[in-house]
């Protein structure tokens, strides 16, 4: 199980790194085994930064990420290799994930030299073919080919197969289908759901709400680096409570409902509210409460549904009092 506890990341920006940009602030959520968590946010919301921190591609500024109780920032040296045995990532552009000079199946031989150098060839071939079949690819069709000879969907599935060769617990899937065609993206999505049922935990990073809604058990909505709403997917999409979530849900183009109709169903106005320094959609301007350093910003609305909005927070506090 992967667990993020109040994770923040700040980047140095400006000349000589004089300024700090807080890209991710106080993000906490868990990814359990056999669960898909979708991390939804617009460009610049910090969703990819969260993924990179989990993959140890960048350092964590504050907070801790633990995998099965072990703090990943303490993993060094040879430990990193065994960490990657359990945690792998697949990224957006399948074409730039491969070296175009080498054949696409080089990604597999790299895994072999790193992790299975003692394995006999016959056993390796069997393992590789099983992994390829696991992502519904025909080994004869995809092995020994250059990246340009394969389609985007095939390349993306090869990368997932590569991750499957290892003893994987967590897969970070960062926008893996946004570059694919409508006719093939659903297959890759179903593949993720299939991996989930085999007990893998998947962090599905996307900006597309309908994809997140289709596949995930849990949804985390990020805005400017902070979680604005999270919880069980049907609750977050069924009763979006944060003004920003409402705006997102009402903007998703749907197939059988026009925008005006969705807005009507959601009720409350969704645009033109401003004032919250963290979220543009803060309902009441000028009433920002002080934010103590170690108080949780998310309040529980109902079972498995949390919202980070000061207005809703004070309402909840009032109800309790």
């Amino acid at each position, binding site marked *: 199980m992967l667990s993020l506890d109040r994770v923040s990341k700040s980047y140095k920006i400006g000349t000589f790194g004089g300024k700090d940009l807080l890209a991710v602030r106080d993000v906490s959520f868990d990814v359990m085994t056999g669960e898909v968590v979708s991390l939804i946010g*617009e*460009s610049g919301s910090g969703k990819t930064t969260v993924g990179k921190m989990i993959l140890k591609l960048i350092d964590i500024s504050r907070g801790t990420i633990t995998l099965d109780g072990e703090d990943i920032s303490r993993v060094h040296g040879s430990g990193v290799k065994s960490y990657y045995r359990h945690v792998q990532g697949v990224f957006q552009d399948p074409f730039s994930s491969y070296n175009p000079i080498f054949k696409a199946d080089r990604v597999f031989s790299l895994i072999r030299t790193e992790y299975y150098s003692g394995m006999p060839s016959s056993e390796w071939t069997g393992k590789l073919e099983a992994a390829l079949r696991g992502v519904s690819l025909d080994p004869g069709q995809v092995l020994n080919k250059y990246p340009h000879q394969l*389609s985007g*969907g095939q390349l993306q599935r090869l990368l997932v197969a590569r991750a499957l060769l290892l003893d994987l617990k967590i897969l970070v899937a960062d926008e893996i289908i946004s570059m694919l*065609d*409508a*006719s*093939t*993206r*659903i*297959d890759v*999505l*179903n593949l993720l*759901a299939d991996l989930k049922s085999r007990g893998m935990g998947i962090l599905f990073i996307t*900006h*597309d*709400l*309908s*994809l997140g*809604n*289709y*596949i995930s058990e849990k949804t985390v909505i990020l805005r400017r680096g902070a979680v604005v709403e999270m919880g069980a*997917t*049907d609750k977050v*999409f069924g009763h979006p409570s944060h003004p920003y979530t409402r*705006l*997102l*849900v009402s*903007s*998703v*183009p*749907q*197939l*059988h409902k*026009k*925008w005006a109709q969705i807005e009507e169903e959601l009720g409350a106005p969704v645009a033109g509210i401003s004032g919250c320094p963290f979220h543009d959609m803060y309902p009441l301007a000028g009433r920002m409460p002080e934010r103590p350093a170690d108080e949780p910003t998310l309040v529980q609305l109902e079972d498995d549904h949390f919202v980070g909005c000061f207005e809703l927070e004070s309402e909840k506090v009032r109800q309790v009092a």
Partner: protein
Amino acid sequence: MSLQVSDLRVYYRTLAGDVKALDGATFAVADKEIMGLAGESGCGKSTLGNSLIRLDGRMKYVAGSVTLDGNELPIWDSKEMVQYRFWDVSEIPQYAMSAMNPTRKIGKMISELVQSRGKRYSEIKPELQHRIDLVGLQRDVLDRYPIELSGGMKQRMVMVISTLMDPALLIADEITSALDVSTQRAVAETLVSFRDHGFVRSMIVITHDVSILYQIADSILIMYAGKLAEKASTSVIIEKPLHPYTRMLVSSLPEVGVRYADKKLSGIPGSPPSLLNPPTGCRFRARCPLAFSKCREEPPFVEVERDHWVACWKATGTDA
């Protein structure tokens, strides 16, 4: 009738031979119509859009005609087309983010643009400002450089510039794909308001996202492998499509409300054929679950009901 395209064929010249990216397109776009053009990547939708405004060096005009309000557009002759571009036919390009000159302030760039077309900047400035208000931008964007604007703002600015001369036909190529959902909606609704205000007479909106088209388009044209597959009003394409490709495409789209646990969607197996040597007969045959012997012949693109065109033997009732 605003735009009439008949049997248009445009190929790409490559060393290996001609890539038949657009192989016989016949359709019409009426006045005040927003026509959506959808299909997988490489199906020829951008080729169709580009060929109505500018053929680049690799593209070769082969046959067919394009008539706008009764005048035939000389699309094979890039120099002759100059008099139509921007005035009668305009385009919002696929990468509007980088469509503006980064070294000029936006106002200066527009002034140079209209001067090159023989108009004075002061003449069009009031209208320009009015339209900037309309798309929800500040008037001072004209004194800013493109880099100072966000993606959605740039996109809207390019939309204003493209439609400044009230073109009869506007081609919008994948203009919402790179945007966030909330901006995407604002841009899509701006397109509709441009039509409603009469800034643009007819529009072709090219996208791979059918759900956006459902929101804004009056009719949808589906392309497959360089051929037209189906054209009908938006509700017909979404609710009761006839072509198997359209059906599979529409049913493979995940929507808010559809969950994997309740309803497992499926994609279209296989991949589109190479257009270098396209297969004879129906090009969707290899992936089609309904294919039968007749599909070895090429199905014609015929009107089966009023305003509902389809190229499929099954749909036209030529079974057996």
